[in-house]
């Protein structure tokens, strides 16, 4: 089972510069655990205290997972997960 994961510029230090990596998992949480095994430190940029960080957007195909089931969002083979840091400030 392969999920394509698109990585934004600022997190490519964890993937050796790759803008896309592959992972597996039946939920988003499992996918992040899987990615962490090969890209140590990536998970902590996305998750804090068991929940998705507020200023990181994660999308399953075209939808923000906040509108789905967050970290429990189920994934299937061939899905694309995209990570984009929120653009925000004061």
């Amino acid at each position: 089972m392969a999920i394509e994961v698109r990585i934004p510029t600022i997190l490519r230090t964890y993937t050796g510069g790759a803008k896309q990596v592959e992972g597996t998992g039946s939920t988003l949480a499992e996918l992040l655990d899987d990615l962490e095994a090969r890209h140590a430190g990536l998970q902590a940029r996305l998750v804090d205290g068991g929940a998705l960080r507020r200023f990181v957007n994660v999308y399953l195909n075209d939808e923000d997972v906040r509108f789905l089931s967050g970290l429990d969002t189920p994934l299937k083979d061939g899905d694309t997960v995209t990570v984009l840091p929120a653009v925000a400030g004061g």
Partner: protein
Amino acid sequence: MLTIPRDLQDKIVAHARKDHPDEACGVLAGPAGSDRPERFIPMENAERSPTFYRFDSTEQFRVWREMDDNDEEPIVIYHSHTATEAYPSRTAISYASEPNAHYVLVSTRDEDTTEFRSYRILDGEVTEEPVTVQE
């Protein structure tokens, strides 16, 4: 140094004035690696606040995907301050997530003049840079 065509600068200023007293925000896209802003993309401020801005996540996804398809990248990320000077706040610095972008700040605190300044923000460090406007 930021080099920006006059008409794009005018569009940013007009957007900031229009959304005042809420902060306005948006992107200037350009060909990847060119450092040349070409396309004006005003964004919705999902916070609708006079002191904070955030790109709506679904709109951001659409715009970023479009840029990727066009082989573009965000050259400028701009937002406005409505009551303070055109200098990035601590939150703007800590959330700056596009290392290659120029962060433009506009201040609409004064009715008659608009401050327009540009910065690079890398690893939490802010450096102001000169702005050259092309006629």
